[in-house]
């Protein structure tokens, strides 16, 4: 294990049909990063499938939700001396061949976080009208509260440096953490860079955010961003 390098964190909840594919894809890329699967209390064979591909698995005793799962990965990275952490979704939306591209801006030390963005290039990413509206609202809220112009706030394809890993293992939002994390990181002075990536549609299964949940999602995340304004800085 080359611990000076990065750790690819893949949170997975009942992804037995997708997890094998994404692991194989990463292994085929020959990137010099280790892979860690966070099995978020899956009731199917997610952990077994992952282990059969010779990849370490951290199994949570029950479902914590994406935030708690990813944070477990940050804690693992911190304790095992990794300098970079890359979050990749298990459902195949993120293309492993773009991991190196995502990692590139961190090497110079100019940035702390890199976000793979769907909306940066005018590419052919298929999305619904509602999602576009949501994306604009989140961009506006984050811009108004922290002055950051992040176009794809909900992207879970991210790369963090050591300093950020340390911070996030202490503070990371629980459910629907992506947008809130950007607000919290911006508030605490982390430098965020957005680069264009192409996302694919899911291999199998359905997105965790259904139509019914999306209203709760919008309200919860907006509230979290607004409350963040009134919090004091957690760093320095």
């Amino acid at each position, binding site marked *: 294990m080359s611990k000076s390098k990065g750790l690819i964190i893949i949170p997975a909840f009942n992804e037995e049909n997708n997890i094998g594919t994404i692991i194989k894809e990463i292994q085929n890329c020959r990137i010099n990063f280790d892979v860690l699967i966070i099995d978020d209390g899956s009731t199917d064979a997610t952990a077994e499938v992952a282990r059969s591909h010779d990849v370490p698995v*951290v*199994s949570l005793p029950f479902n914590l939700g994406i935030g708690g799962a990813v*944070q*477990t990965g940050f804690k*693992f990275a911190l304790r095992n001396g990794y300098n970079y952490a890359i979050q990749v979704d298990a459902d195949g939306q993120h293309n492993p061949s773009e991991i190196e591209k995502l990692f590139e801006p961190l090497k110079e030390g100019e940035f702390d976080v890199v976000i793979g963005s769907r909306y940066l290039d005018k590419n052919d990413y298929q999305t619904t009208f509602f999602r576009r509206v949501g994306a604009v609202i989140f961009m506006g809220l984050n811009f108004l509260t922290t002055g950051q112009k992040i176009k794809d706030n909900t992207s879970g394809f991210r790369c963090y440096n050591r300093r950020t890993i340390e911070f996030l293992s202490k503070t990371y939002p629980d459910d629907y953490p992506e947008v809130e994390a950007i607000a919290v990181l911006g508030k605490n002075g982390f430098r965020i860079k957005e680069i264009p990536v192409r996302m694919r549609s899911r291999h199998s299964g359905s997105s965790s955010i259904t139509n019914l949940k999306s209203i709760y999602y919008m309200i919860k995340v907006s509230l979290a961003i607004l409350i963040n304004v009134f919090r004091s800085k957690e760093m320095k």
Partner: protein
Amino acid sequence: MERIQVFAILASAAVCIVIVELVRKKKLMEKYSLIWIFSTVILITLSLWRNFLERLADFLGIYYAPTALFIVLSFCGLGLLIHFSIAISTLTEQNKILAQEVALLKNEVQTINESEAPESKNVRYKRTSNEQE
């Protein structure tokens, strides 16, 4: 003394006794009993001290004094509920940290087991079967 006053005193006293009894039996932590006892003491005081209750009602613009008692009661209830929400949030956070810790330790134990014994799968199987005996 009005009937409602008698009822309010008896009910508050009953709640207070139940709470103290629960703490005595160690079914309720002192920490969580304080806010209950505090609430019942306020209610009993207001029920007995009719003069203060009337002045409070007057101040709040309530014509029938015992109604003020219900307002105070609802605020005590609200305080208790907020208190519980805070307690649940704390527990949820602690529970999350524990789950993460358990998962990370499980992984570490597994890694250690595997590095100690090359034929780790057999060793682990034997160990678990020993535990069951």
